[in-house]
C-alpha cells in the first residue's frame, strides 16, 4: 500500500514537473514569438472604387477672354488598389478617368453651332469652310458643339513603399502617366519618412517631377489666320464678313483690318514641374496631433494655356456674326456675335510657388473629433492666398456611421498678370483674363457620410465591404462661380 502511495506521489510530481516544463516552454516560445513578430504594413489587399460628379456655373469663361458661359460638368470614376507584396512592402495602383464637358472649352471654335464646320467634319480643325458664310455666328454665352466641348483625361499612377522592420523608416517611389486632348504628362518621384521619439514624431521629404507636354489647341480664328497665310481672303475667313465696333463690314484689303497681335503662337510645348516637399508630424498629447508641410515648387516651360483668349483695350475690336448684338456683347443677351481674339494668354515661363500648410487634429471623445487645416501660399507671380478649413467627424452607433460636416474658406490676391476682359494693354509682356488667377474669396460647405464595417461582413466575391463614403460640397466664389461636387467611394478588403 505504501509502495503504491510512493509511486502515486512520484507520478504526481512528474506531472507537475511536466506541466511546469510545458508552461515554461510555452512562455519561452511566446516570448520569442512576440519579440520577432512584426505587424504587416498592410494586412490584406484593399480596393477603393471612387467616383465624383462635379458641375459649375459661371460667367467668366477664360477661353473667351474672361466673359462668357463657363458651365462645366465632370465625372471621374477611379479605382485604387493597394497590394501587400510582403510584410514590409506595398504596391498601390491608382487609375482613373475624368470625362468632362465644358461650355468654355467648346468656344475654342465658337462658330461650330452655326454650321461653320459644315456639319460634317466637326473636329475643331481649321480646314473647315462655312457652307453659308453669312450665317456664321457664335457667342461667348452660347455653348458650341465642336470636339473641344468634351474631353477625357486619363491617368495611372503606381507607387511602391517599403517600411523597415521597426517601422521607423519608410521609403517610397512613384511613377505616373496622364493624358488628355491637348496635354500629356509623365510624373515620377520618391520620398523618405523617418519616425522617432517612440513614433511620436515623424519627418518626411518627398521629391516629385512632372514632365508635361502641350498638344496645343488654339482659338479657331488665330489658328485659321496662320493657316490661311495671314490672308483674310483665304481659308475660313474667305467670304465671311468681319464687322468693326460700329457693326460695319470691313474691307479685308483695307488698312483697318483685324489681325492677331502675335503671329507666333506657342513657342515651347514643354511644361515641367519640380517639387520638394517637407513634412513634420508630432503627437502632442494622447488626443492631439499636428503636422506641418512645406512645398517648394518650380515650374518652367509654357505655363499659359494656349486655348485662352485675351482682348486688349488699346486695339480695335472686330466681330463675326450679328452686328445688332455688338452693343450687348458682354451680356447674356448676346447669342450671335463673337469678338475675334487679339492674342492668347501669355505668362512667364517660370513660376516658383511656396505653400506652407499645418493640420491640427483634436480628439474630443469617442463620438467627436475636430480636424483643422490652414495653408499660406505665395508665388513669384504676385499671388498670395490663405486657406482654412474645419471638419467635425461625428460618430454614431459605436462608430459604424460617421457624419462629416465641414467648411472651407479660401482667398487669394490677383496674379500680377491678370486683368478682366478688354482691360489689358498690348504693351504688356504678360497677360491673362483667367479668373482662376484673379482676386477672389470662396466658401465651401459640405457634408459627408461614412458607413464602416470593421468585420467586412458583406462579401463581393473574395472581397468584404469595409466602408462606404458619400460626400457633397457646395462651392461659392465671390466672382459668381458656383460649383457642386458629389463624391462616393466604397472600400473592399480581401478575405
Amino acid at each position, binding site marked *: 500500500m505504501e509502495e503504491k502511495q510512493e509511486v502515486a506521489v512520484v507520478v504526481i510530481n512528474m506531472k507537475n514537473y511536466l506541466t511546469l516544463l510545458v508552461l515554461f516552454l510555452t512562455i519561452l516560445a511566446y516570448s520569442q514569438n512576440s519579440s520577432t513578430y512584426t505587424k504587416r504594413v498592410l494586412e490584406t489587399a484593399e480596393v*477603393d472604387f*471612387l467616383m465624383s460628379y462635379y458641375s*459649375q456655373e459661371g460667367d467668366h469663361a477664360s477661353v473667351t477672354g474672361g466673359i462668357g458661359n463657363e458651365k462645366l460638368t465632370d465625372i*471621374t470614376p477611379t479605382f*485604387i488598389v493597394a497590394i501587400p507584396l510582403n510584410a514590409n512592402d506595398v504596391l498601390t495602383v491608382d487609375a482613373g478617368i475624368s470625362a468632362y464637358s465644358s461650355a468654355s472649352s467648346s468656344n475654342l471654335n465658337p462658330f461650330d453651332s452655326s454650321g461653320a464646320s459644315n456639319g460634317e467634319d466637326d473636329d475643331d480643325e481649321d480646314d473647315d469652310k462655312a457652307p453659308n458664310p453669312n450665317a456664321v455666328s457664335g457667342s461667348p454665352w452660347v455653348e458650341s458643339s465642336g470636339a473641344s466641348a468634351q474631353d477625357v483625361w486619363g*491617368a495611372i499612377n503606381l507607387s511602391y513603399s517599403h517600411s523597415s522592420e521597426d517601422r521607423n523608416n519608410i521609403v517610397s517611389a512613384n511613377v505616373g502617366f*496622364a493624358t*488628355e486632348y*491637348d*496635354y500629356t*504628362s509623365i*510624373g515620377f518621384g520618391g520620398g523618405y519618412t523617418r519616425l522617432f*521619439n*517612440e*513614433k*511620436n*514624431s515623424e519627418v518626411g521629404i518627398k521629391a*516629385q517631377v*512632372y514632365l508635361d507636354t*502641350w498638344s496645343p489647341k488654339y482659338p479657331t480664328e488665330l489658328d485659321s489666320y496662320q493657316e490661311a497665310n495671314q490672308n483674310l481672303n483665304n481659308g475660313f475667313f474667305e467670304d465671311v464678313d468681319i464687322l468693326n465696333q460700329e457693326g460695319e463690314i470691313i474691307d479685308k484689303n483695307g488698312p483697318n483690318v483685324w489681325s492677331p497681335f502675335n503671329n507666333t503662337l506657342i513657342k515651347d510645348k514643354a511644361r*515641367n*514641374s519640380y*517639387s520638394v*516637399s517637407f513634412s*513634420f508630424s*508630432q503627437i502632442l498629447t*494622447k*488626443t492631439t*496631433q499636428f*503636422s*506641418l*508641410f512645406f*512645398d517648394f*515648387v518650380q515650374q518652367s516651360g509654357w505655363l499659359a494655356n494656349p486655348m485662352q483668349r485675351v482682348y486688349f483695350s488699346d486695339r480695335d475690336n472686330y466681330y463675326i456674326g450679328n452686328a445688332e448684338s455688338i452693343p450687348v456683347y458682354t451680356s447674356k443677351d448676346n447669342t450671335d456675335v463673337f469678338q475675334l481674339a487679339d492674342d492668347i494668354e501669355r505668362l512667364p515661363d517660370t513660376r516658383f*510657388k511656396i*505653400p*506652407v*500648410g499645418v493640420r491640427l*487634429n483634436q*480628439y474630443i471623445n469617442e463620438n467627436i*473629433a475636430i*480636424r483643422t487645416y490652414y495653408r499660406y*501660399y505665395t*508665388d513669384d*507671380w504676385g499671388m498670395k*492666398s490663405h*486657406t482654412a478649413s474645419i471638419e467635425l467627424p461625428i460618430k454614431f452607433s459605436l462608430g459604424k456611421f*460617421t457624419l*462629416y460636416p465641414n467648411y472651407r474658406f*479660401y482667398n*487669394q490676391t490677383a496674379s500680377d498678370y491678370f486683368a478682366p476682359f478688354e482691360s489689358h494693354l498690348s504693351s504688356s509682356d504678360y497677360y491673362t483674363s483667367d479668373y*482662376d*488667377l484673379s482676386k477672389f474669396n*470662396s466658401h*465651401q460647405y459640405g457634408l459627408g457620410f461614412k458607413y*464602416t464595417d470593421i468585420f467586412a461582413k458583406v462579401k463581393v466575391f473574395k472581397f468584404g465591404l469595409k466602408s462606404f*463614403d458619400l*460626400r457633397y460640397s457646395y462651392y461659392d*466664389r465671390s466672382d459668381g462661380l458656383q460649383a457642386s*461636387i458629389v463624391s462616393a467611394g466604397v472600400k473592399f478588403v480581401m478575405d
Partner: protein
Amino acid sequence: MIKKIIICLVLVATFSSCLTVKEYEKVNINDPDMKLSALKIKKFETNFQVYREGASGANGGKTGGGCGCN
C-alpha cells in the same frame, strides 16, 4: 520667408521634445478620423480646387503639374 521657416523649425524642435505618448496610449490618436492626411474621398475636391484656384500644394494633393491646371 526664411525667418518664418526658421521660426517653424524651432517650433518643430520644441514640439518634438514634448512628452512622449506611449504606444498603448495611442488608441485615440489612432482613430481613422485623426489621420494627419486628407481623407481619400476628398481627392476630387482637392482636384477641382487646384483648377479653380491659383494656390495649390501643402495638402498632400497636386502642387502643379500632371494637368493643364494652375
